């Protein structure tokens, strides 16, 4: 199953995006808050200085020689000098009438009292100014007079401070954001880590490894692992059941067939009449047919199943071939067929031993079946890197001149083997096995004259 699963995006990227947007939002909020706070603070400090200056001016007011006089202290103005050389404006009014200063300096909107100075931001001479106004009550000739003084300063210094604050805050904000981003990336990485590890450990398993997953995982992944294990369990059970079914089917089909065949054989020994003998022989042939067919169907099912999850282990092909030949000696001997077996150095391939053995058995079985009595079957192993080729040649009927290629199709039988019991699945099974192992099956007629040759080529390990 190599198809691409439909994805809903990456957890890692989603985490990163969310963390980063969170960090970004927080950074922006932080920047805005700090900026606004600093701005207020800076404004407050300007206001404080202005207020101090104003207080100094008002404190320097007095009645002298029957006249109101304000002896503006030098410090009242010099304290307003700053690095930005802001301009300074002032006005002093007595009972609402202009006394001294800048006559066109705007009056405050809010009423200023003695206790509470009124602060105002306004424009004067085309520049922005911050102004504070306060009043003082004095007594002249027994009646009260109100002294109102305003002092204003341009805001270049403020603007500069604010710019500096903004830059600093932006810098810190960016730094904070970068650090958040790094943390976000690391967090995403470490969160996704366990998932990746689990996936890796499961995919490292062989095709037949149905053990439950026992790796330790974080709490949140426990339900996933549990479901996975349950699934594995169900799969295992299902597979075992399928295998058991196949085995059970085999048993159930074959045992009655065995009984019938055995009894038929006994009966054949006892009857004399030719026609009875012929009938019994037919029966036995038919039983052999069904049993062979059942066997091959079950074999085919097994092969299909195993090639889907091909196990790969080291196999000595030569040894396996020899084993299979030995196993079939008895059957070959029945027809006085002699195996000649030629092998060179051990040849190693990668594959499923059971499937390969099954294939070899099928081929040798075929060879014996289609060989006449007292003939030879040669089994030869040749190596031509990177391939190893096993050739089984018999002296039998050979393959039909036409249609040889279609023999590997299911249930195909040559048009020259009508009298011989066979289901037609043998070569199909062998072909499937060999193909699954990355090899080739070649069928041809024996170059040495009579008979057929079947060669399978497999890649060396």
């Amino acid at each position, binding site marked *: 199953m190599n198809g691409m699963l439909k994805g809903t995006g990456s957890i890692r990227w989603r985490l990163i995006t969310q963390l980063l947007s969170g960090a970004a939002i927080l950074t922006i909020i932080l920047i805005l808050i700090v900026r606004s706070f600093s701005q207020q603070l800076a404004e407050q400090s300007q206001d404080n200085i202005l207020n101090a200056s104003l207080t100094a001016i008002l404190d320097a007011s007095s009645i002298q020689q029957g006249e109101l*006089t*304000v*002896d*503006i*202290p*030098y*410090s*009242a*103005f*010099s304290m*307003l*000098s700053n*690095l*930005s*050389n*802001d*301009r*300074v*404006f002032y006005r*002093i009014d007595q009972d609402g009438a202009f*006394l*001294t*200063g*800048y006559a066109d300096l705007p009056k405050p909107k809010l009423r200023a009292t003695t206790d509470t100075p009124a602060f105002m931001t306004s424009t004067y*001479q*085309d*520049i922005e100014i911050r102004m504070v106004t306060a009043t003082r009550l004095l007594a002249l000739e027994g009646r009260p007079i109100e002294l109102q003084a305003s002092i204003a300063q341009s805001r*270049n210094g403020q603007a500069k401070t604010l710019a500096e604050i903004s830059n600093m805050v932006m810098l810190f904000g960016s730094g904070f954001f970068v650090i958040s981003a790094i943390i976000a990336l690391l967090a995403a990485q470490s969160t996704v880590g366990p998932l990746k590890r689990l996936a890796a450990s499961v995919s490292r398993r062989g095709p037949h490894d149905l053990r439950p997953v026992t790796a330790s995982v974080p709490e949140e992944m426990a339900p996933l692992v549990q479901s996975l294990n349950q699934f594995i369990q169900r799969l295992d059970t299902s597979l075992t059941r399928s295998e058991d079914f196949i085995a059970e089917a085999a048993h159930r089909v074959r045992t009655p067939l065995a009984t019938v065949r055995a009894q038929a054989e006994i009966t054949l020994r006892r009857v004399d009449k030719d026609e009875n003998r012929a009938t019994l022989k037919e029966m036995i042939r038919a039983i052999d047919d069904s049993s062979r067919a059942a066997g091959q169907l079950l074999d085919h099912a097994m092969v299909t199943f195993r090639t889907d999850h091909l196990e790969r282990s080291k196999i000595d092909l030569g040894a396996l071939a020899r084993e299979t030949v030995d196993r079939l000696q008895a059957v070959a001997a029945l027809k006085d067929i002699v195996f000649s077996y030629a092998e060179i150095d051990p040849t190693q391939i990668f594959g499923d031993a059971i499937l390969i053995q099954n294939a070899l058995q099928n081929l040798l079985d075929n060879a014996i079946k289609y060989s006449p009595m007292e003939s030879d079957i040669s089994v030869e192993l040749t190596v031509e890197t990177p391939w190893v080729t096993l050739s089984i040649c018999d002296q039998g009927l050979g393959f039909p001149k036409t249609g040889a290629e279609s023999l590997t199709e299911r249930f195909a039988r040559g048009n020259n083997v009508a009298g011989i019991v066979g289901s037609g699945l043998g070569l199909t099974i062998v072909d499937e096995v060999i193909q699954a192992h990355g090899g080739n099956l070649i069928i041809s007629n024996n170059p040495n004259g009579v008979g057929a040759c079947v060669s399978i080529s497999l890649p060396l390990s």
Partner: protein
Amino acid sequence: MRLNILAIVLTLAGLSAAAPSLSFEIEHQESFTSSSLEPEMLRIISTADIELFAPLITGFQASNPKVTVDYHEVSSTELMRALQDEKAPYDIAVSSAMDLQTKLANDGLALAHSSIATTLLPGWGKWHDYVFAFTQEPATIVISTKDFGDLPLPKTRQDLISILRDHPDRFRGRVGTYDVRSSGLGYLFATQDARTSETFWRLAEVMGNLDIQLYCCSGAMIDDVSSGKISVAYNVLGSYAMARRDAQDTIHIIAPQDFTTVMMRTVLIPTTSQQPAIASKFVDHLIQAAWDENFSTADYPFPAINRDPAASDTSLRPIRMGPGLLVYLDKLKKRRFINEWENAILQP
């Protein structure tokens, strides 16, 4: 006959061209004409003595030969009248009255200017981008060598007070200082003195007792000390005194050691300027002449600027540029000060 009328008309025309029909008084006027056929005009209004200032102009014309400079020398109060009240179209305003220049800038009557040259200035050498300092000139006591032949030279104001008290007859009518009512620089020096120490008022009283002579300008005070008309002149511009080669044998220039007020002559570009580009160049020229170490001193007629005056001499009191200078320009404050000063000096 016709030629005469033409001549008169031309002269009148010339006069009217040269002196715009305005109500402030010009003391001297000089034109530094360029040889170019299409000259660019730079109009300077200044309190600086023309002869003293000239090298700065010629130096500028050396690198800007197309510029013709029209120089009008005025008193500091007249300069204020011209720019503040009359809004006369000058390109450059040079004045020794730092407070008045600051007020012009504060009132929005100066153009902002910044360039590579302005970066040469330290923070205390300019106010905003409006007012630029290009000299450091102390307020000194100028004394007649002849009249003080036998007396020890006063080192501090206290010394001077003692000497004047001890020899009233010798010095009656023979002391002089600025009339602060008419001289902007004089007012500046006096108010700064009063701020710094009360010795000023005591000295003022002592001098007032001696029938003090009042002057409009340092030049006149130096002349009279040199010629023997007066023995002591107080708050004389040290730069002028030192520039007077002819008077060197006859005068002592003393920087009082209790404190010496140091004034910075400043330049600004009025908003009424018709040639702001050339004006900017001229400002840069002045700045470089004063502050650039690579500039040749031959073209800079004032005493060399000290970037760190406090380090070399703790008695120096440079006047700081800033809004503080506006305090003594306040109507009420000024009235008070002048009253007190009159009481001390005039002793009616």
